[in-house]
């Protein structure tokens, strides 16, 4: 009996223990997950959700992501990469893959649709106005994403509600076919029109530069309609317009003027608001153009930016791209180097073409030296150029962040026996020649080494002037520009030019405003000199490294001719310009500088854009998952 009692004493607690398993397993909770019920009625949490969603807007080449893409078109070559095993890093990109720009971003669309529906349904504690404002902001992001998709893919299915699977085993009811490219552009326009006045984010007359407001909505519409207008026009001017039977890609030529007009109207609404103006605070136009991007306080030019703040939100553009000479870290620098083609695209301020004068071929023969002009200083060759060159690119003979860039590839020493100059170069930084003077500078350029210029130029745009901003641990908080006034003026100029007739004076006014800021005299372009090619060149120069070039060439339908894959086509190849010191004691040319131009030593394959690149490939899994999706042409 006693034993049985003891047995019970031990069994009873065991019985209780048997209840405690589940209780214990309920105890841990996730310290990183918020439940739906904790979000939709809390404005702070909805704002945090918006932070995530703004941060996820699609990126192609941007200062904080996708930087190597800048080295894939005609803005530069990749040179400084530590991991140099890919074709991109080695500049050996023989073609652009059909899926290079593919974007099928429906997780993002689903998150936006879910948020739009949930705010409507669950945010009972928010005022009607607050709900309207959040919902308009989410619709802006959705329109932005559809624009990013349509410019890469052509028409995509327009999904505006959450698609919920019922786990029945038959998901066919969730299938949606692609809308036409025209429908997507029209959807973007109508969405932006609908939210323009309810999106808010303007406090006492000053629109936010970070969050969607009337003017960023207009700016997006201005850009999207310009794209639609030019695709409608130039796609149909191709020998064989790119299109599909269901019009998933390709826009009707008849819509072109309407789209251009919509773009111009949106631009004019921004221009006439008087809120924005071109940044013009520094009397030196070159410094002014550089400051236009990097000076944040009171900057009247920016319409929408992606902002950063040290130390909580920073990026490493300066670390990756800073000129080797003034880098502040023992790794990286000089990852993308601007090429000579871009440098020469900057015209002289007197209006003549920007081709540099007196440049040798680099063949190290007498014939290669006949063209030489002997310059007193390395920067003399760049004198009187469009000031945006100085604001965008670091070139020889200048200084940046208070440090002389010291760019010299080597020396040319006179040989009396050969009756020509003989070239000497080195791969050692700040190495001296036998005469005790500089052989190769701290800033290169060098043919082989990494983390130094391969082309003879460095990027200056977006590089932070602050001390230590190019050190990994510190980083930079220069903002990324989504929309700025300069672009709006160029959009307006192009739309007005394309519309022609009575709009030409407007086109001239807008483009000349931009050119005047770059150091050109007033009214430097006039009716007879205003051409599409001129406007295309203006965009290339004004908006270099702002992720416009590749998309602009596509919408003008000239990518396949500019980047035709031929080593004989200069625009498809990337060139270098190397400065040398001349040694010829006793001769007037001794101590002067000469320049050689040749294919960038690390550039291996000409740019090759194929017709199948105009619309990117839809991945096989997307096609498998939904039989209603049709492929793009050429794939």
């Amino acid at each position, binding site marked *: 009996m006693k034993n049985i009692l003891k*047995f019970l004493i031990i069994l009873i*607690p065991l019985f209780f*223990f*048997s209840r405690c*398993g589940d209780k214990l*397993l*309920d*105890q*841990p909770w*996730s*310290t*990183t*997950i*918020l*439940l*739906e019920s904790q979000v939709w009625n809390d404005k702070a*949490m909805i*704002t945090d*959700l918006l*932070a*995530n969603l*703004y941060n996820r807007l699609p990126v192609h080449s941007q200062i904080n992501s996708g930087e190597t893409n800048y080295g894939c078109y005609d803005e530069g070559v990749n040179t400084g990469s530590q*991991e140099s*095993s890919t*074709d991109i890093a*080695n500049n050996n990109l023989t073609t652009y893959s059909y899926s290079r720009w593919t974007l099928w971003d*429906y997780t993002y*669309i*689903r*998150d936006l*649709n879910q948020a739009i529906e949930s705010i409507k349904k669950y945010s009972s504690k928010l005022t009607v106005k607050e709900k309207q404002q959040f919902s308009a902001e989410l619709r802006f992001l959705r329109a932005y994403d559809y624009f990013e998709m349509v410019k890469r893919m052509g028409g995509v*299915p327009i*999904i505006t509600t959450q*698609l919920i*699977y019922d786990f029945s085993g038959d998901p066919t009811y*969730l299938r949606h076919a692609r809308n036409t490219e025209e429908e997507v552009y029209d959807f973007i326009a109508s969405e932006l029109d609908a939210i323009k006045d309810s999106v808010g984010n303007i406090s006492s007359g000053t629109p*936010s530069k970070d*969050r969607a407001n009337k003017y960023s909505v207009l700016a997006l519409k201005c850009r999207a309609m310009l794209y639609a207008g030019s695709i409608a026009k130039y796609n149909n001017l191709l020998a064989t317009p790119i299109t599909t039977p269901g019009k998933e890609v390709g826009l009707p030529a008849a819509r072109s003027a309407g789209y251009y007009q919509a773009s111009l109207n949106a631009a004019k609404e921004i221009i006439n608001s008087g809120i924005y103006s071109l940044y013009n605070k520094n009397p030196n136009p070159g410094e002014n153009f550089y400051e236009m991007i990097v000076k944040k306080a009171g900057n009247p030019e920016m319409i929408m930016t992606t*902002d950063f703040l040290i*130390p909580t*939100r920073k990026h490493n553009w300066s670390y990756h791209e800073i000129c080797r000479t*003034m880098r*502040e*870290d*023992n790794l990286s*620098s000089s990852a993308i180097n601007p090429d000579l083609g871009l440098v020469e695209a900057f015209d002289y301020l007197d209006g003549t073409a920007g081709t540099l004068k007196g440049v040798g071929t680099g063949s190290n023969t007498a014939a290669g030296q006949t063209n030489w002009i002997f310059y007193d200083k390395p920067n003399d060759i760049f004198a009187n150029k469009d000031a945006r060159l100085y604001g965008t690119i670091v070139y020889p003979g200048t200084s940046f962040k208070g440090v002389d860039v010291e760019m010299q590839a080597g020396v040319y020493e006179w040989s009396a026996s050969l009756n020509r100059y003989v070239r000497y170069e080195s791969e050692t*930084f*700040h190495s*001296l020649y036998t005469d*005790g003077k500089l052989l190769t500078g*701290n800033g290169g350029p060098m043919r*082989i*080494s990494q983390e130094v210029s391969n082309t003879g130029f460095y990027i200056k745009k977006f590089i932070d002037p602050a001390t230590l901003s190019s*050190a990994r*641990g*510190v*980083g930079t908080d220069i903002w990324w520009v989504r929309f700025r006034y300069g672009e709006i003026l160029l959009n307006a100029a192009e739309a007005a030019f394309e519309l022609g007739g009575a709009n030409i004076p407007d086109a001239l006014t807008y483009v000349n405003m931009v050119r005047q800021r770059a150091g050109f005299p007033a009214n430097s372009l006039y009716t007879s000199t205003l051409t599409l090619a001129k406007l295309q060149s203006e965009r290339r120069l004004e908006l270099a490294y702002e992720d416009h070039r590749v998309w602009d060439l596509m919408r003008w339908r000239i990518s396949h001719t500019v980047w035709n894959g031929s080593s004989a086509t200069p625009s498809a190849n990337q060139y270098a310009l190397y400065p040398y010191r001349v040694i010829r004691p006793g001769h007037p040319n001794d101590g002067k500088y000469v320049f050689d131009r040749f294919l960038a030593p690390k550039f291996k394959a000409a740019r090759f854009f194929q017709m199948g690149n105009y619309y990117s490939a839809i991945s096989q*899994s997307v096609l498998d*998952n*939904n039989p209603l999706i049709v492929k793009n042409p050429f794939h």
Partner: protein
Amino acid sequence: MRNWPIERPYANDNPLYVNNTHSININPATYKEAFTGWTDEYTRVFKSNIYADYDFGFGLKARATYSYEYFNWIMECFEFTYPAYTYDRVAKTYNQVVGGGNLNPYRRTDRQHNETKYAQLQLNYNKKFGKHTIAATAAYDQTRMDLQFLRIHTIPPTNYIPIQNLVDQDELNNQWTMSARASYTGRLNYNFNEKYLLEAIGRYDGSYMYAKENRWGFFPGVLFGWRLSNEPFFKSLKGIFSELKLRGSWGQTGAESGVSAFGYLGGFNWSSGSYRFNGVTYTGIAPRGLPVTKLSWVTNTSTNIGIDFAIFNDKITGQFDVFRRKRTGIPAARYDVLIPSEVGYSLPNENLNSAENRGVEGMVTYRGKMGPVIFNIGVNTTLSRSKTLETYKPRFGNSWDEYRNSSQGRWDNINWGYHILGQFQSQEQIDDYPVNVDGSGNRTLLPGDLIYEDLNGDKIINTMDQKPIGYATGSNPYMSFGLNSQFNYKGIDLVLVFGGGTMQTWIYSNELKIPYGTNNGNSPQWLLGDRWHRADPYDNTSEWIPGYYPPTRKDFQTHSNFSRTNDFYRVNVSYLRLGSTEIGYNVSQKLLNRFKLGLTKARIYTNISNLFSIDNTLKFQVDPEVSSSSGLVYPQSRVFNFGFSLTF
């Protein structure tokens, strides 16, 4: 390997000035604490166990256990700034390089503490009735763990002050995770006359990883043993077999595989991306995908048949086993339901796939004596492979896709790659070669380059030409073996423990394959020394001198020689390593007594781990157990110990 032989660590070899080499952070001159900074790591552990026993007196015993463990880990790092110089030979001055050296200082403090609480209540029953013995156990146990982590990261303005300041802070990282598990266990043993053994086990396990309705799993098992040598009919064989036992078992256990904690919750992930609105940085919250509610434990089912034996008066003992471990319910998504990509989510995982491991293992030990030498030698070996049994309704676009990508019913770790037929011997051979080897019409090829096998005969080398080219890489060898031996001779003893493996593949790459590496660095001598090259490197018309490796090229990692995984750079590794050896001498009692030091025992010994290995990776200067394809990891170290022990 990233340093260049043409660069010196110090400018003008003066140890006061670090040379500004092409990549200074790998300059060995900077690898000094006073120079580059320091890292200190502390681990502190406190562990306590409390238990209470109670004996009921009729064969039933109870034990309650509670244990508490506190683990604390601190890491302190300080990276200094330092300058780098170049030496000006003409002016005889050392010039500090702008942007050289290290200007990227940081100071980091990491703290982590884990608290583990474990409780168990166990009942044991043990009773013998004549020839029957019964034992039973019932238990409940639970574990709860909390982990907290904190990192404070600052950019210090000076190298001299290690104290961190708020104004210098650029990072704060805080993590807190918890876990809990519980299980009920029952076991019943029955033993008849030490002849028949039977055991039944059952576990009921619960884990916090799964949704409430799926968090518990029941896992039973049975074992039997039959000691043949105790049977009357075995008597005639007793002279040979002193012991012979047959064993068999079948059992299941659960595994938490392919599941992430709280995957069953929807909602939002905190701190995912951030954005700056009007000057203020906002922490982002990211919508989570569909909750994973249908997932539960993966079941491991193990089956094993074995035999234990001892023969010739226990001189030889051994055991052999055949085993199979089947895993069912491996998480996968039901992909025959094709959800359009436009819905923006994918279907959550369920317990659908299965796989298994199969193998045999054996061990034999011999105890013997030769004159005054007493010794025993044991060998053991295991052969094991894993196999995928079933995947959820596999689907293939075509028969090649199935051949290439199916895992259904196949051994795992198929090592796909290209087969190399040989090397081009001359430019004429390249010019006449009908197959496009390099993807560029053979324009990039030189004598000595690799000839890829055109498996499908389409005159171009691409992924269609891959086939299995070796055993698994980077995992355990299919076959492993060991040899343990002990020798004793008049107070001197020797222990040798060998371990080895075979049926394992290592494919060397990166720095060991590509001349001048992937990092603009140097290459091993064996790679550069024995290669195809021109007789005169400055004359591109001079004749080719054959070698083992293809001709070198700089900055051309995408060349066909390097870009494809092939069997030219394959080694099927086999090795036998003297893992540890000890030789010792015990001073004899006679001698100890003579010195009258009060010593009862004295021993001197030396032991060495990893004294040598016999292998086929010596040529590459790489340890055979290194799985890194670049070999750029620390190999096993060789440790020498000398010691003595005295007992008073």
